[in-house]
């Protein structure tokens, strides 16, 4: 992997699993022995308002926050949160939003966040096994099945 830092921003609304999403991405990168930083805000912002979380990985990462205009990927769990976070993307950066997933196929609608990670996974150099292992590490066992299914729907396997 090159020494360049990969910058991912997950944006959405409180309660949509934004922080779970960034937790999984960061866990994949951490277990691939990369330097990783993940940043988020807690507290009042979580009461149904806009929430975002940054994940950065590479050989060496300094700031935990993705600088504006340097995001490689924006994963938005709600379409209306794309404009809120758009300034973070670099030119040619990739937007992944709910339109990339056929939500009617999801066994559990709450797994949309993980389905979007499935879409993201197609762009990142980690194996399917690494992603599934992270999903299983981060989520409680009762949610594994629905979220593995959601991941595959996004990944298009």
């Amino acid at each position, binding site marked *: 992997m090159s020494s360049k830092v990969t910058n991912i921003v997950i944006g959405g609304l409180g309660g949509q699993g934004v922080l779970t999403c960034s937790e999984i991405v960061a866990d994949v990168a951490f277990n691939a022995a990369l330097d990783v930083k993940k940043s988020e805000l807690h507290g*009042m912002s979580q*009461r149904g*308002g806009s929430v975002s979380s940054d994940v950065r990985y590479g050989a060496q990462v*300094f700031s*935990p926050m993705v600088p504006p205009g340097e995001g490689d990927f924006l994963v938005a769990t709600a379409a209306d949160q794309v404009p809120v976070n758009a300034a973070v993307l670099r030119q040619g950066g990739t937007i992944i939003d709910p339109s990339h997933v056929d939500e009617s196929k999801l066994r559990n609608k709450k797994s949309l966040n993980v389905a979007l990670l499935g879409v993201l996974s197609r762009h990142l150099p980690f194996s399917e096994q690494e992603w599934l292992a992270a999903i299983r590490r981060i989520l409680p066992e009762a949610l594994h099945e629905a979220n593995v299914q959601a991941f595959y729907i996004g990944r298009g396997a």
Partner: protein
Amino acid sequence: MLFLSGDEAVATAAFDAGVKLGTGYPGTPSTEILEWFENLGGKAQWSPNEKVALEVGIGVAYAGGRAIVTMKHVGLNVAADPLFTVAYTGVSGALLIVSADDPGMASSQNEQDNRRYAVAAAIPMLEPADSQEAYDFTLRAIEISERWQVPVLLRITTRVCHSKTVVRCDRSLPQPRAAEFVRDVRSRVMIPAFARPAHHNLREKLRQMAAWNDSDGPNQITEGSASLGIITSGISYQHVREAAPQASVLKLGMTYPLPLELMRNFASRFERCLVIEEGDPYLVEAALAAGIAVEGKPDMFRFGELNVARVRSIVAGDTSPEPKPVAGKPPALCPGCGHRSVFASLKNLDCIVAGDIGCYSLGVLPPFDAMDSVVCMGASVGVGLGLRHALPPEQAKRVVSVIGDSTFVHSGITGLVEMIYNPPPTGHVLLILDNGTTAMTGMQEHAGTGRTLDHAKTGKVIFEDLARMLGVPNVHVIDPTVDTPKFEKLVKECLDKSELSVIVARRNCLLAARYIREYERCNEQQGN
């Protein structure tokens, strides 16, 4: 290797160091420290407020134990009274006070910079820049506390607390010695005759610590450009390394007492030496006062957090207006939240609402628009009383104080005593919104829930009993949601009375309700 948030790293180090007791009051971004410490197997407890938490910590450290006391930045205001004097008395064990500051106010009412407290209270301070340093500096702080027998401040900020970074836990401390009472009246009893020499003693310790910080402190130089030097600390260091990779950087780990000779030597090597720090111009003022030639940031950057883009602007001397962030969706009271019926009623009754700190601060936003002041924890009671004293009677009679359950325990009880002692001529109405948890910070227990930090059964403060015992003539308990018109009628009756009333509006937080049921079930089973 572990992947930990700064809060988790502090907790892990405290646990590894054999800390005897962790105390604190929940507050973003500090809350997770004690929760993680307890998770690891440490003994942690929520105190009613930060002052009590610190006093309990002082007791542990007087007994020779290692104590960690955690709070958010504004919590240190509450704990300031013991803070200033424990600096004089010193400790015989270790006392680590964690102040989690919130520059940019992600979830706070101000963005005060608590580095000023280290100077004002004369307490050594460490500032970690990531989770690795949060771990290492927690151990360091315990060492410093034991070596110089002083309390130590660990000042962390939101982006250190809530960022996860890679941590190696490869240092350890000798295990603490057993707790034992050693009488030391001259050190511990701060009557003036003993406090005067204690102050001299403290200044002597600080002189020694400054010398140690100059030669052996946890500071680090990254060599780079010969023309640009940057002095920085904490999270700002990370932004600096990314924004100015060519610069030489002095990262200060211990920022009180400052290593002024180290700073002087570093600064003298560069044509331009910048100080880059988030918040107040603390480092730059200290450097300039010591005659060190440095340049600070333009004043516009003292507001809010720093980030890579802003540090680039500081380095470039660019003071052009910054792009305004796109407004996201503001937070709101949850659909079905019990507070909703309360604020709808207060709006209907055209109340003047002295509010307080918690989820219910959101009552200020539409559609409720039903809050007229929020100052600090507990202020609703005093501010409401003051309004009643000063306003003409027809306006005074519309004033209510609204406070949450955890906030009432934190600092509303003394306000209630004031209400009994100095009642306004029109009486007063105090509404305690009891949702059975400290909701805003993530559903922590408090003395009014009757459960400890780890949710085990313990003593319980019953608000209505307390109010009656103090002599409030009208005390009511009501669920505001199950029959909202009845609730509204009750508030109206109390407002019309010109007497003192306490209404406990009791309905469990929607998010917490199922956990509360589960804790109650477990505790009942254990009781049988």
